[in-house]
């Protein structure tokens, strides 16, 4: 429904705005089909790919970055929530890293790691790490101490308390954090590619912007948007599956 409304609005706008600044939905759709496997306009710049391959490149980077960030950020957030000294050490480092704009960070990464995918991946991974660190830490802070106390009085070891209380009790918030990180990661990955990359949706946008090929840019961004929305839907589904117990109560009668 919302998509139809958006399309209608877009179509309506094309009648007032010049074609060169706003292409019609139909022309963009046709352009996506044309460029999907191999884009002629791009081979002109020496880029022998299409939207599909570029999207795959970008998606792989985002997935790898979210994975890296989750593996580092979430456990670090949980651990620091329980050990004050470690928290005092890690907090300032990650909080500082989190406030540096990606535009400032990107040139350094390009110098250090080159224009390969590793640069963009690490840039996005840092952002994801910070988000998940904060989410996991907050989740561990907020979990009611009564659960841990109860587990200890029932005979649980420290390791079991982490496995049976701390992890499951924080999973919904951490998964929520992964969804937010994922949503932001698409944009950041595209920016990182704009700043310097050899492939990817961001690279296409950068090249076509040089040629003011608005239609081509729209086509690339639309593909990115559709994939991002689809991934968010998938993530939401996984979140709901992994934390079944956390659904709103259906009944509560005795």
């Amino acid at each position, binding site marked *: 429904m919302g998509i139809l409304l958006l399309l209608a609005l877009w179509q309506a706008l094309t009648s007032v705005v010049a074609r060169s600044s706003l292409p019609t939905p139909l022309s963009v759709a046709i352009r996506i089909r044309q460029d999907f496997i191999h884009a002629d306009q791009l081979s002109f710049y020496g880029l022998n790919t299409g939207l599909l391959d570029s999207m795959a490149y970008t998606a792989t980077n985002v997935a790898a970055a979210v994975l890296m960030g989750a593996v580092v950020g979430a456990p670090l957030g949980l651990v620091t929530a329980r050990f004050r000294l470690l928290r005092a050490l890690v907090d300032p480092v990650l909080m500082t890293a989190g406030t540096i704009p990606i535009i400032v960070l990107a040139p350094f990464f390009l110098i250090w790691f080159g224009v390969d995918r590793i640069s963009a991946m690490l840039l996005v991974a840092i952002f994801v790490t910070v988000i998940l660190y904060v989410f996991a830490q907050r989740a561990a802070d907020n979990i*009611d101490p*009564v*659960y841990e*106390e*109860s*587990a*200890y*009085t*029932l*005979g*649980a*070891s420290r390791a*079991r308390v982490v496995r*049976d*209380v701390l992890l*499951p*009790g924080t*999973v919904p918030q951490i998964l929520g954090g992964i969804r937010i990180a994922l949503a932001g990661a698409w944009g950041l990955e595209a920016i990182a590619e704009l700043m310097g990359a050899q492939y990817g949706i961001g690279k296409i946008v950068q090249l076509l912007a040089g040629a003011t090929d608005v239609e081509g840019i729209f086509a690339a961004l639309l593909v990115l948007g559709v994939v991002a929305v689809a991934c968010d839907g998938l993530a939401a589904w996984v979140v709901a599956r992994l*934390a*079944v*117990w*956390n*659904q*709103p*109560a*259906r*009944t*509560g*009668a*005795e």
Partner: protein
Amino acid sequence: MSDVKIEASALSRSYRRADGAEVKALSAVDLRIEAGQFVCLVGPSGCGKTTLLQIIAGLVPPSGGNIVVNGQRVTAPGPSRGMVFQKDSVFPWMRVHANVEYGLSCRGVAKAERQKVAAQYLERVGLSHVAGAWPRELSGGMLKRVAVATVFANGADVLLLDEPFGALDYVTKRQLHDVLLTLWAEGEAGRRRTVVFVTHDVDEAMILADRIVVLRAGRVVDDLAVAADRPRTTDALLLPGMVRIKHILLTHLGLEAAR
């Protein structure tokens, strides 16, 4: 019935408030509780009764003095002292039967055996029909039943209950008193579990306790035996001996002038 189960000697606990002031939650508490006794700790809020319970559980270390349970000094929480908390402590991420089995699984009891024990205690508290449910699907009273079943299933011979039924409505509370007393009484005399039950509700203490210990400002100020027969009916609570105890308790709580 003469063996001492819980022995507190010169127990004290103080902590520093955020404004820097030193607060004494408990000072020089001496208390001996015999095996199989049902003891209620009663007192106005802030009198230290919850602190005393947490020290017995091993959740809070004493600032001074000693706490000995089963002849051993308490240094950490453990499965020999089961605890039912004021707040809901049932894990929302485990189904009801998994919650009841949790303590047993921590102690390495085989799956078939712990499923049997859990099913048995869920039946005792009248919750067999929701064994496979998620805790969010239960009412507050049902969650308390799960918590009670969990500590009983775990086999602790000392049970510590911290105002467990404080937030429940009157009917549910009375039903849970019956559940608790039935489970407590099922062991033959001498093998009964020892119960320490914190409450601020005078009537609740009189229905449940063999002995009521009154705390005020971190000290034991009275220690009353409740000899009435069980089950304690409405009429039993109106016997002269019981009414006298009620007057004493209300006086300690500052609700009646001393006579």
